[in-house]
């Protein structure tokens, strides 16, 4: 480690190595975030310049407005439902696929490449691809099979549109999580696996008692990423359902976006954004603490 004595040296190395990135970080991310937090306690209307200070402190009024908004609660509950479903299914499927493509399987590299493809494409384009499937293609299946579930586009029915949203998200995320699980599985030393088969462990016992405990770091990363991604999901929601029909599939991020840029409700929109941050931060902290404990035992 370097320790410099002179103030001039210190300033010089700071300026050389860290001034530009830190300046960008502070101006682009930190200041808007902190200012946004402070603004939730004022009656700023979203139009006046923030620097004009042409607004008053109103305490927690924006928060009480936000919490009194029924649409916000709907969006929050829907987001929780969405996050749980996406996290559970993504991780189960990703882990299962990872087991499959790390076993003795011909063409396993080819399969890995295939499963990763949805991650290459942006959420907006993915959403549009599935718009076609859940509307035109579903109706076509309905025509030829007469099945009730396929008579109409899934995107015009609130429940089915929500299921569609979950399907697309799981489809998109699982390829990435598969790579994380593959990295974990490949990292398990071969002799441990061999020792367990010599001791007569069945494949299931081996998976349950040898492989899965060794995979806890991979589970941690994957859980963290799926939680974060699904709480912040926006693009697919916007492109696939646009929050419709009648704002029934609005996740909380899209809800905030619509409040701000469609309905110009900046004050409580920003309060909702802070609430979203608090939820995400709390879950992230709980998760890190819980997995740390699990790893130690």
């Amino acid at each position, binding site marked *: 480690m370097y320790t410099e004595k002179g103030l001039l040296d210190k300033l010089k190395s700071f300026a050389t190595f860290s001034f530009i990135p830190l300046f960008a970080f502070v101006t682009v991310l930190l200041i808007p*975030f902190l200012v946004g937090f402070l603004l939730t306690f004022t009656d700023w209307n979203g139009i006046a310049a923030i620097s004009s200070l042409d607004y008053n402190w109103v305490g927690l009024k924006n928060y009480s407005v936000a919490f009194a908004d029924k649409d916000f609660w709907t969006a929050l509950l829907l987001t929780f439902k969405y996050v749980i479903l996406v996290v559970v299914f993504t991780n189960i499927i990703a882990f299962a696929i990872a087991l499959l493509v790390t076993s003795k399987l011909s063409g396993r590299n080819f399969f890995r490449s295939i499963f990763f493809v949805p991650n290459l494409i942006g959420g907006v384009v993915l959403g549009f691809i599935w718009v076609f499937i859940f509307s035109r293609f579903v109706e076509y299946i309905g025509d030829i099979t007469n099945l009730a579930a396929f008579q109409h586009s899934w995107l015009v029915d609130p429940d089915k549109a929500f299921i569609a949203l979950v399907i697309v998200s799981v489809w998109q995320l699982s390829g990435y999580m598969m790579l994380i699980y593959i990295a974990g599985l490949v990292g398990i030393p071969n002799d441990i696996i061999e020792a367990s088969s010599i001791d007569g462990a069945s494949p299931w016992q081996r998976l349950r008692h040898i492989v899965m405990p060794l995979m806890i770091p991979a589970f941690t990363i994957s859980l963290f990423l799926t939680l974060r991604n699904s709480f912040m999901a926006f693009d697919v929601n916007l492109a696939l359902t646009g929050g419709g029909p009648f704002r029934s599939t609005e996740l909380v991020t899209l809800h905030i976006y619509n409040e701000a840029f469609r309905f110009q409700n900046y004050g409580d929109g920003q309060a909702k*954004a802070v609430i979203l941050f608090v939820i995400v931060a709390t879950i992230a902290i709980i998760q890190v603490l819980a997995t740390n404990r699990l790893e130690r035992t």
Partner: protein
Amino acid sequence: MKIKLNFKFLLAVIFAIVYIFPFSLVLINSFKERVEIIANPLKLPAEFSLTNYITAYERMDYASAFFNSLIITVTAVIVLIIFPSMLAYYLVRFNYRRNQIIFIILIASMIIPFQALMIPFVSIYGKLDMLNSRLYLVYFYLGFGVALSTFMYHGFIKSIPMALDESATIEGANKFQIYRHIILPMLKPITATIVILNSLWIWNDFLLPSLALFQKSRTLPLSTFSFFGRFTTDFGLAMAGLVLSMLPIIILYLALQRQIISGISEGAVK
């Protein structure tokens, strides 16, 4: 044993079909006319007509959107190699208490959802008249991307032995020369991972450019969005637009899939 292997293979094939089906459906229908799609979306096109593609290419202003995306992504990705690697070097190698605090703030910032700062961001930079150029957008990408890239470089630089720095110092190199000639060349593997992650993020990003760019400098996701919005019911045309939008990254993936997959796997363990 043989049967078991085949069962696994079959399972993998079924999964692969499910994963690839949406793309194939889009591809098939992009060559068809509307009536043909309505009649049977599963059937191969009667003839591979490029009419939809030509129309979509023009209406999307494809060439311009493609180059905007390319310029922004390449510049931002380079910027996100240079500055985070320097910052990480500084945070690891310079022994100051505050460096640890800076590092913790950077990590903590990664859980801030964009929506939590979107409204003040638009207000501040709108008033500064900065929501209209590709150059400022690159600057925003530096601000939003610096935490993750620095975090990854930080872990890697920590594992480089101090002895290398010390021997370079004895030979008369200054700090910047050490960074430039000793550290930076050793960062190649982690840089590959960072480049892949940042390229996918920036190339596909929708929300930030939708807030920070004018019509004339639209990127590919923005132009796809408005194009699809206008032609949703003209299925064939819309599908051709989607294929065009995916084409560059798919071609890149076909060429570099081994590197992309292994690069991301490397990053996943860290």
